[in-house]
């Protein structure tokens, strides 16, 4: 009995270790192929369009409403302390330090990460990845590296757009709806937000980009067992990426603060 329990636990630990090792090797191969020429410029541009341009609408929409609700909540909270003039600073700091990078990463995971895992997963079960191998084309260089570079370029830019649109959404509610002075809204923002806040936001965004591209391409690349496997890979890609973004956010915030 005891032996069987130990065997079960040991098997699970070994499986997890093997899986982590495989993920590490996969990431190293992807980074190597992204860094070492020849570069696949056209594929990278195509993927930037997929990650960036096609996610723009959902990012703008999410950012606008996030900024608006932040402003609404922030205004009534700050008014209790007679500090509603600090609303602009509160909205901007919340967005730039936390909500911009995190919500952009979560939205991109939902929109592009899931599609990425499904696309590569379908290529795997349809033997298209094997077909690349037989033609002497490295599938990591062809499929994974361009997507990783595209994510690293697109997601920080989307985060910047998220921040700007969110701040403007907060402005619409705080200034146009609730009657706060526009000078106060932007003035306090200017004195409170430091370049370190922006830089930290960029670091977070870059880390999340790598995480999303890594997890989603990995899950797609090692899809097994038909349509059900693709569905499982897509779901786990989104769930794992999202959870890792939130855990990563806490760790990065602790380190960067």
């Amino acid at each position: 009995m005891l032996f069987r329990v130990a065997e079960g636990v040991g098997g699970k630990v070994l499986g997890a270790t093997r899986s982590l090792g495989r993920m590490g090797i996969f990431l190293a191969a992807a980074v190597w192929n992204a860094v070492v020429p020849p570069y696949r410029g056209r594929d990278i541009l195509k993927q930037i369009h997929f990650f960036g341009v096609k996610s723009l609408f959902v990012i703008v929409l999410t950012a606008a409403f996030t900024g608006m609700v932040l402003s609404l909540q922030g205004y009534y909270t700050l008014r209790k302390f007679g500090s509603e003039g600090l609303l602009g600073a509160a909205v901007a700091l919340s967005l730039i330090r936390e909500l911009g990078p995190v919500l952009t990463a979560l939205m991109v995971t939902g929109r592009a990460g899931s599609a990425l895992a499904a696309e590569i997963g379908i290529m795997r079960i349809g033997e298209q990845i094997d077909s690349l191998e037989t033609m002497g084309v490295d599938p990591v260089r062809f499929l994974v590296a361009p997507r990783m570079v595209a994510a690293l370029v697109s997601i920080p830019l989307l985060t910047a757009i998220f921040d700007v649109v969110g701040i403007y959404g907060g402005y619409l509610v705080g200034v146009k709806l609730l009657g706060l002075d526009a000078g106060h809204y932007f003035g306090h923002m200017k004195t409170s937000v430091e370049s370190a806040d922006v830089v930290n936001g960029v670091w977070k965004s870059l880390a999340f980009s790598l995480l999303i591209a890594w997890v989603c391409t990995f899950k797609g690349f090692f899809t097994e067992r038909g349509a059900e496997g693709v569905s499982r890979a897509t779901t786990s890609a989104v769930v794992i990426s999202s959870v890792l973004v939130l855990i990563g956010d806490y760790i990065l915030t602790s380190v960067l603060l």
Partner: protein
Amino acid sequence: MRLVGVDKILDGKKVLDNIDLDIPRKRITAIIGLSGAGKSVLLKHMIGLLQPDRGQVLLDGVDLFHLSRKGLYETRRRFGMLFQSGALFDSLDVFENVAFPLREKTMLGEPQIRERVHVILRKVGLEEAGEKFPDELSGGMVRRVALARAMVMEPEIILFDEPTTGLDPIIRNSILNLICRMFQDHKFTMVMISHDIPDIFHWCHHVVVVHGGKVIEAGPPEDVRNSVNPFVRQLVQGDIHGPVQLM
């Protein structure tokens, strides 16, 4: 090509068991056997898609699995492979699917690529289908495009994984005729997994029978057809009575 003592275990099951096999050069070799006998796994070892747990896969005396990754990719330029599903790229049209290896692995200019793709598409009778996408093609057309893509680099060795499975008899014969015509024109070394028994005995030069992960018979078609091995006899005759009882 030669396989020496190849073993492979997948999901705890021994799929290949001490396989020793010679593939004759510039001949058509057919691999036959029941479904699940290990034929596709065997084919994937020949091109280095799967690595044996033990044994060697030798091409001109060089073990594929002693090559560097770059060396293996270079060696694969000598191969073409046609997958059972066709494995065409969904996002590319027929022309681009066939042009893909030329764009990726050669320095040819656009006019030369266009010329070569048109020539090969004409050979497989699909010159007019260049702008169609894989989901707009019939099963037979998919196999022909896959055949064109496998041959466009003019490889020395072409591997076919059940090129005619699931096709109606007319399309199946047209694909087999096409393969034979290609062989006569180019004298590739061809290795083909097939269930087209007894038809394959008419047009292949060498037959390999795989059962339970082992090669149980290999030789010229006539020898295999006249084998005294009861399993081979059952397989060749398609008899429901014999050593293999499915029901």
